[in-house]
């Protein structure tokens, strides 16, 4: 568990943070990164040490840049894949860099851009482009008691066909921030900021219970393709399995890298799940319906 003495190594040898199946080695002398981990990663297994699946260093700028519009540089596995960004984004940069690492290098799994939550042993995969209401729905479900596996990645084990958890802070943007803050008043949030696309963002700390169950995979049950539309009545429309396969593959970072194994993993998942398009506007209406959908499938025949 996290304590102050372990995090004090962040600026020197770094710390190893275990996040689901990955060990992430993080180094940074920036107080914002320290504070970010202290606030949002309290409860995660963190220890001093070197090495890991991913090596992330958030480095402050030097010279005049230390005082005028300070910047943060990212060193990822020894390389600098990004241009420097404003230093006040340093905490969030850790999350975005981790997204980059998992999307690029997690080839033990078929990685898809999707949120995953679980209830009564059935995982609900929420797949959609940015702006579709994916993270809002994910955060609201988590506040409603669903277990968080991830708000960014569905990690499919190609051998077992299960979904591996990667519970991390949930990324919220723009109007979602206010909607979720109203629903989760006791929840811990990171610092609010403006990202490089000029969107307001904040990260919501994941529930301790989800972090504690980070090594417990879940079986795929339902795939939802949500679309939030102002004033829309909640409507579920069944999606054929072939379309589920195509749409999930379209959101996959690496199925074609894994070849036939990657394709078969998504095809098997599509075969096992119920797929729906969901149009909605009212979370209070849609949440119990999703719970009902999940529980109906979970009941023995």
């Amino acid at each position, binding site marked *: 568990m996290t304590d102050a003495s372990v995090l004090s190594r962040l600026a020197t040898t770094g710390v190893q943070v275990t996040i689901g199946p990955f060990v992430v080695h993080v180094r940074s002398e920036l107080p914002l990164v320290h504070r970010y981990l202290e606030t949002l990663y309290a409860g995660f297994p963190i220890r001093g040490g070197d090495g890991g699946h991913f090596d992330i260093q958030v480095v402050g700028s030097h010279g005049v840049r230390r005082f005028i519009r300070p910047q943060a540089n990212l060193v990822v596995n020894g390389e600098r894949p990004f241009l420097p960004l404003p230093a006040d984004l340093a905490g969030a940069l850790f999350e975005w860099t981790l997204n980059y690492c998992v999307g690029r290098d997690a080839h033990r799994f078929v990685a898809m851009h999707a949120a995953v939550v679980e209830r009564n042993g059935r995982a609900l995969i929420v797949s959609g482009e940015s702006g579709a209401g994916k993270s809002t729905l994910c955060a609201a479900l988590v506040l409603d008691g669903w277990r968080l596996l991830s708000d960014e990645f569905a990690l499919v084990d190609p051998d077992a066909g299960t979904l591996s958890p990667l519970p991390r802070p949930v990324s919220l943007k723009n109007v979602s921030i206010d909607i979720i803050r109203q629903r989760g008043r006791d929840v811990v949030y990171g610092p609010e900021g403006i990202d490089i696309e000029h969107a307001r963002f904040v990260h919501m700390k994941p529930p301790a219970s989800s972090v504690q169950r980070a090594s417990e995979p879940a079986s795929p049950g339902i795939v939802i393709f949500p679309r939030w539309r102002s004033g829309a009545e909640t409507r579920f429309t069944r999606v054929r*399995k*072939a379309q589920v396969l195509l749409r999930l593959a379209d959101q996959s970072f690496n199925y074609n*890298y894994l070849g036939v194994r990657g*394709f078969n993993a998504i095809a098997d998942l599509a075969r096992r799940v119920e797929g729906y398009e969901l149009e909605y506007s009212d979370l209070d209406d849609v949440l119990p319906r999703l719970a009902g959908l999940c529980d109906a499938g979970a009941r023995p025949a």
Partner: protein
Amino acid sequence: MQVGLRWSATPGLVWTQFDDSDDWVVFNPFSGDIHLLSASAYALWQLTTSSPPRSSGALIEALAADTGYTADGDFLSSARDTLNFMDRAGLIAPVQ
């Protein structure tokens, strides 16, 4: 599509089908792409697996015979488009 070419199925493609539709999904491991094909398109592709390879005209004639469709203008145009698509997607290849 050049008239007179004969066509052969690309080996190594991975096909799958689900219980809620007649459509087929194919993964081309050489391109890494996934395509959705109708049952008729799959039937046309299957005709390219037989030996010796057949020309576009012979394949379309055989498809019409197998499916019971009349080989009218719409059918011919749709079948030619499907062969063109399968050529572009690397699901079939011309043989000398």
